[in-house]
C-alpha cells in the first residue's frame, strides 16, 4: 500500500532501534507515555516493545475515547434506545461497552432496540432523512478528531431542516486530560510515577495543531513529540524523545510534520467553536471529574441536543472496586498488575474501560502482548 508500507518498513525499524539502543543512556530510565490509543495499538500490533532497550518503557495513556467515556453516559444511551421508535447511531466500538447491570448497546440491540453502527456522523444524518417519522440520535464520542464531523452533522441537519435528529454529545478534550495526569498526586507530589516525556497525539494534532502542547513542555518541563500512528512514526518519536531527554531539553517537536502544523486545521477549529462550548465539568471513566474537559452543544443549536430534547438523568456508575483502570490510565499501574486482568476481565467480557476497545491499554496488551507475561 503506497503511503502506508513506507511507514512499516522492517529494515528502517531495525535502524532506528539500533539508534535508540546506542543513544539511550544505560544509567537512566526513560518513561514515555503515549497518550493516544492509536499509538498503544500500533505499539502492541507491531511488537514495538521488542525493539526497545529495557530501560525505555512505554506507558499507555488515557487517549482512547471509548475507554474514558463513563458508564453513566453509556447507561443513558442504553435507556434512551428503549424509547419506542428511536434509532440510536453509534461508532462500532461503542456497542460492547458495559453500562449498568451488565447491559451494553449490543445487548439492548439483541433485546429489540434499534441500534445502528455507523462509520461516520454523515451516515446518521442520512438515517434521519430516511426515517422522518422516527427520532434519530447520534451518540457522539471522541477527542478533537471526531468533533468537527459531529459539528458538520449538526449543521447539515439544520440546513436540511431535520426535526428528528439530535446529537448525544460526549466529546472530550485532549489537553485537559494531559494536564490532569501531570497534576495528579502520583506525579506531582508522591513521585510514585516518573513520566519523562510524551508521544503527542497524531490525528488530534492535525486538528488542534502542535501549539497547545507548548504549555505542557514549558510548565511541566516534559518533552513532547507529536507522532503519526504508523510504527515507524512511533519509533522515530521515541528516538527524538530519548535525544531531548539526553540533552536536557523539554520542547514540542513534530515528527508527524506530513500532517500536523503548529496552528492545526483552523477551519475545523472554527466550526467546532461555532457549534460547541465548554462544559464546566465532565466525568472521565477511570479519571473522575475533570473541569472544563468536555464540550456541549451551544444554545443556538439546542434543537439538535439530545440532552435537551429527552430526559437524560445524570448517572454516576462506579466501576468494579478491584478494577485498576484509573491507575492504568494514569500510567501508575500496568494491565498485568490488575487482579481482574485476563481472569474475569477479558475483551469478550470487559469489566473495566481499558479492556473495552482494541485501543485500550488492557485490551491491546491482552490481545497482542500476553506471551511476554507467559514467557
Amino acid at each position, binding site marked *: *500500500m503506497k503511503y*502506508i508500507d513506507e511507514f*512499516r*518498513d*522492517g529494515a528502517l*525499524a*531495525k535502524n532506528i*532501534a539500533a539508534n535508540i539502543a546506542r543513544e539511550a543512556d544505560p544509567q537512566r530510565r526513560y518513561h514515555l507515555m503515549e497518550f493516544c490509543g492509536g499509538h498503544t495499538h500500533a505499539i*502492541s*500490533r*507491531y*511488537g*514495538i*516493545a*521488542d*525493539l526497545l532497550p529495557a530501560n525505555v518503557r512505554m506507558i499507555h495513556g488515557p487517549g482512547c475515547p471509548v475507554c474514558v467515556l463513563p458508564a453513566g453516559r453509556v447507561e443513558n444511551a442504553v435507556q434512551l434506545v428503549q424509547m419506542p421508535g428511536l434509532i440510536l447511531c453509534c461508532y462500532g466500538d461503542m*456497542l*460492547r461497552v458495559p453500562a449498568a447491570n451488565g447491559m451494553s448497546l*449490543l445487548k439492548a440491540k439483541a433485546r429489540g432496540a434499534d441500534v*445502528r*453502527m*455507523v*462509520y461516520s456522523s454523515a*451516515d446518521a444524518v442520512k438515517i434521519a432523512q430516511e426515517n422522518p417519522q422516527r427520532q434519530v440520535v447520534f451518540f457522539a464520542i471522541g477527542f478533537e478528531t471526531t468533533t468537527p464531523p459531529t459539528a458538520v452533522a449538526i449543521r447539515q441537519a439544520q440546513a436540511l431542516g431535520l426535526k428528528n435528529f439530535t446529537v448525544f454529545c460526549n466529546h472530550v478534550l485532549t489537553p485537559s486530560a494531559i494536564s490532569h495526569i501531570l497534576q495528579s498526586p502520583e506525579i506531582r507530589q508522591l513521585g510514585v510515577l516518573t513520566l519523562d516525556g510524551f508521544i503527542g497525539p497524531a490525528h488530534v494534532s492535525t486538528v488542534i495543531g502542535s501549539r497547545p502542547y507548548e504549555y505542557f513542555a514549558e510548565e511541566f518541563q516534559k518533552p513532547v513529540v507529536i507522532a503519526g500512528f504508523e*510504527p515507524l512514526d512511533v519509533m522515530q518519536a521515541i528516538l527524538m524523545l530519548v535525544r531531548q531527554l539526553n540533552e536536557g531539553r523539554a520542547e514540542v517537536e513534530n515528527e508527524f510534520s506530513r500532517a500536523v502544523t503548529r496552528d492545526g486545521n483552523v477551519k475545523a477549529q472554527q466550526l467546532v467553536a461555532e457549534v460547541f462550548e465548554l462544559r464546566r465539568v465532565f466525568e472521565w471513566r477511570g479519571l473522575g471529574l475533570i473541569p472544563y474537559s468536555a464540550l456541549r452543544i451551544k444554545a443556538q443549536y439546542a434543537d439538535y441536543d439530545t440532552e435537551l430534547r429527552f430526559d437524560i438523568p445524570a448517572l454516576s456508575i462506579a466501576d468494579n472496586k478491584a478494577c485498576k483502570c484509573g491507575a492504568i490510565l494514569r500510567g501508575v499501574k500496568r494491565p498485568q498488575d490488575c487482579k481482574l486482568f485476563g481472569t474475569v476481565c477479558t*475483551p*469478550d467480557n470487559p469489566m473495566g474501560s481499558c479492556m473495552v476497545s*482494541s485501543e485500550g491499554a488492557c*485490551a491491546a496488551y*491482552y*490481545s*497482542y*502482548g*500476553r*506471551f511476554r507475561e*507467559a514467557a
Partner: protein
Amino acid sequence: MSTIKPNYTRPLDFKHGRVDMTHGSGGRAMAQLIDELFVAAFDNEFLRQMNDQARFPAPQGRMVMSTDSHVVSPLFFPGGDIGCLSVHGTINDVAMSGARPLYLSAGFILEEGFPLADLKRIIESMAQASRDAGVPVITGDTKVVEQGKGDGVFITTTGIGVVPEGVNISGERARPGDKILVSGMLGDHGVAVMSLRENLTFHTSIQSDTAALHGLVADMVAAVPDIHVLRDPTRGGLATTLNEIARQSAVGMMLHENQLPIREQVKAACEFLGLDPLYVANEGKLAAICAPEDAERLLQVMRAHPLGRDAAIVGEVIEDSHCFVQMETAFGGRRVVDWLTGEQLPRIC
C-alpha cells in the same frame, strides 16, 4: 374443438412472481415449485425417485458428514451468491477430512414475498456449483415463513463423503515442528461481501473466492497422505482457525507476517475499515499442517492446482502450553494473534 389443454397447469411466473405461503404448505403450489425449479435445476437419478428421502449405495470405508447453514447478506455478492456458497461451504467442510464428497442435501427457508426470479437465480447457481463439483444434491426440503420472519432465503446443506484408506486428518494432530501452509490469498470473500453492505459501500475489484476445494484436497492427499490437519478458514479468518487447531492440539504457532499471501486491495480495504485481514472470512481457501519434511512437496502440489496457485508456507507449530498463536511482524516485533473478540462482521456466509 376445445381450447382447454388436458392437465394444463400455468407455469410459475419466474419473471414477476413472488414466494407466497402456499409454496411451503405441502399443497399443489409447493409441488409445482419443487418440480419446476428444484428438480429441474438439480436433476439427478436420486431426486427423480421423488421420495421424502434419497436412497443411494453406501461406499466402503469411513464416511464423514457435515452440515452448514448459510445466511449471508447480501444474497448476491461479487464472485458468487448464497446458492454456490451453500454448495462450496459444505463440500469444503467434508473435504477438510481428506474425504471425497459424494452427496448433498439442501434445506431452504424462504421468506414470503421473495422474488421467484431471485430464487431461480440462486437455485441455478447452486445447481451449477453442484454439477461443476460432481457432487449432486439428492434430497431437500422447503419451508416458507411470513414476511419479516426471514431475510429472503436461508439455505442449510448437509454433505457426506468417504475418507480414503490411510488418511487421518484431524485438528488434534498438529505437532511442534510441523509447517503451516495456506492455499492462497486471504480475506477476499469477506472484503467482497463487505463492499456491498449498505452502511459501507466502497468500490473494489475484489471477488469472493468461493470455490469447492475437494479437487485440491484430493491432489494434496494423493501426494502427502499423512497431512496432519486441514481446515478452511471461513468465519473469523485464518486467525480463528489456527487458534482452534492450537487449542485442539495443545500447541502454539508462530506465523511470519511477510509470508502471508494477502492482496494489496484487501490490505487497503482492511486498513480503511480498521479490520485485520487475518480475521476476515475466506470461502475457497484452506490451511494445512504437515510434517516439516512433507511441506515442500505439499506446497508444490498445491501450487500446481488452479485453486492453490498462491499457496505459501506461512509458519510453524511450536511448543507452548498457553496455546498462543503468535506472529513475527514484518516490522520485526512479535505479537499474539488472538481469538476474534466479538463479531468483526456479521452474516458473512
